[in-house]
């Protein structure tokens, strides 16, 4: 096939235009803004590290950041601890049940995010279903206020909202395991538990890592969940960043805070990739 030069040029332009203009350029603008400053409600182009220093000077930022890091790690742990058994159970089914169950566990990914938050708010409230169930089961004497408008509410809600993101990747990597390998392991005298530990678990690691990453990253940057169910004490780092773009009107500071988030997220992705590579050997 001979390609006319003009043709190739047009194709390159069409392929690169959008990603360069609306992904790369905005990211560069965002990086640049983190070095700007605000004076009398005016954005001033500058090259100052003041926004980054502000992160360390005002101890509320590191505190919220570490708190959010902990929260996202907990959400990830819940996602994997519950998501893995579910994916594993579905994977062990055969025939119709397998795809029906898979479908049922994937559909929540497409259920409206904002509506889930709204529903979770009414489930966790004083007169919500959670309190009713706990009182009915005798686990609580009276409905408790402990489940809404605090960090715990943010944790529970994020776990429910982001759990499906862990199930699907784990299932997909389980499905890539050749059944012959498990057969061989059994033939060589391994008990089911041993096969699981030495064959299934290591080979499902890539999906587990991807699932965990998705949950962690989404939980890390979320600013709507904490606002809807976290009340005044359920503050997270995403909310801090977002407030700089709203009422705070300090876009440079917001950008610097977001750059810090970006660096941590990239570091976590790099770490996960390293773990994935090492386990493959």
């Amino acid at each position, binding site marked *: 096939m001979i390609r006319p030069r003009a043709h190739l040029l047009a*194709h*390159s332009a069409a*392929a*690169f235009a*959008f*990603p*360069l203009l*609306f*992904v*790369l*350029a*905005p990211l560069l*603008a*965002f990086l640049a*803004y983190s070095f700007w400053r605000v004076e009398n409600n005016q954005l001033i182009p500058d090259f100052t590290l003041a926004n980054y220093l502000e992160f360390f000077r005002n101890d509320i930022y590191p505190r919220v950041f570490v708190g959010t890091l902990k929260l996202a790690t907990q959400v990830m742990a819940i996602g994997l601890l*519950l*998501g893995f058994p*579910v994916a*594993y*159970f*579905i994977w*062990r089914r055969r025939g119709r049940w397998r795809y029906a169950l898979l*479908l*049922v*566990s*994937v*559909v*929540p*990914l*497409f*259920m*409206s*995010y*904002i*509506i*889930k938050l*709204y*529903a*979770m708010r*009414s*489930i966790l409230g004083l*007169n919500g*279903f959670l309190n009713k169930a706990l009182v009915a089961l005798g686990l609580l004497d009276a409905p408790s206020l402990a489940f809404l408008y605090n960090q715990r509410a943010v944790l529970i809600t994020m776990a*429910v909202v982001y*759990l499906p993101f862990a199930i699907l990747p784990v299932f997909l990597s389980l499905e890539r395991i050749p059944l012959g390998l498990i057969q061989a392991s059994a033939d060589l005298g391994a008990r*089911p538990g041993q096969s699981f530990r030495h064959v299934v678990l290591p080979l499902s690691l890539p999906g587990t890592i991807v699932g965990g990453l998705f949950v962690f*990253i989404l939980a890390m*940057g*979320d*600013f*709507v969940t904490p606002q*809807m169910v976290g009340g005044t004490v359920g503050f997270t780092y995403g909310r801090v960043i*977002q407030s700089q*773009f709203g009422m705070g009107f300090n*876009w440079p500071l*917001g*950008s610097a805070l*977001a750059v810090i*988030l*970006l660096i941590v997220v990239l570091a976590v992705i790099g770490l996960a990739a390293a773990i994935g590579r090492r386990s493959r050997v």
Partner: protein
Amino acid sequence: MSRPERLTEWLLGGVTALVLFALYAPALVVALFSVFEVRQQKVDFSSFSLAWYGRLIHNADILAALRNSLAVAAAAVALSLVLGLVIAFYANDPRNRGRRFLELLVYLPFLLPPIITGLSLVIFFREVGVDRSLVTVTIGHVAFLLALTYRLLMTRLRVLSPSMVEASYDLGANGWQTFRHVLFPHMRSALVAAGLLACTLSLDETLITFFLFSNDMTLPIRLWAMMRVGFTPEINALVTLILGVTFFLALLVSRRIALRGGN
């Protein structure tokens, strides 16, 4: 199966049932609220009525938001499919330069927290002097959806043997004819699946949209605004409808993907 194995199986099944219940509980609660009256925080099961569904038709704010969302979704899906196709063709040809870099740019908005995609776009639009509107919202959606449409279309394109395209050229077809009669039929089902998936995600997108909208709200943003100031029961009706539609769309997508996996 031995006894411990059967026990493990039951345990796993139990966890799965509990998790699925937790995942669907929010949807169930909303659906209940939409047809039954809630008095003093108690659901009155004798009061079945579809009245809130009727009221919905008269809520101008919600209808306007729904129209905005549909317009944004239509434009974003069309654009992300066309761009996904163009980029997949470019990246699939080993002679082209910068393919890995291009792929990285396409995947970034999907890998990074949405808050970063949203705020970098709003900063960019401010710098180039573009006011926020449904157009900026659409661009934000495309940036995020492109990773998905590209990925699905690329997967399909890779399994097409290059000799098919060569044969088409050898038989005298031009570029357009080759696309029309060889590539497009091969890609059609992938385009449909990617389009449906992109559509459900666009209709639901909240975190990027938040930074990019101005007066015209999309549905999730409108719902969020309504929930913050307290809510009207029409929301439950609307939400149940949306859940029904997304469930249906998800069913369509997964049937397509499952069918393809089965072959």
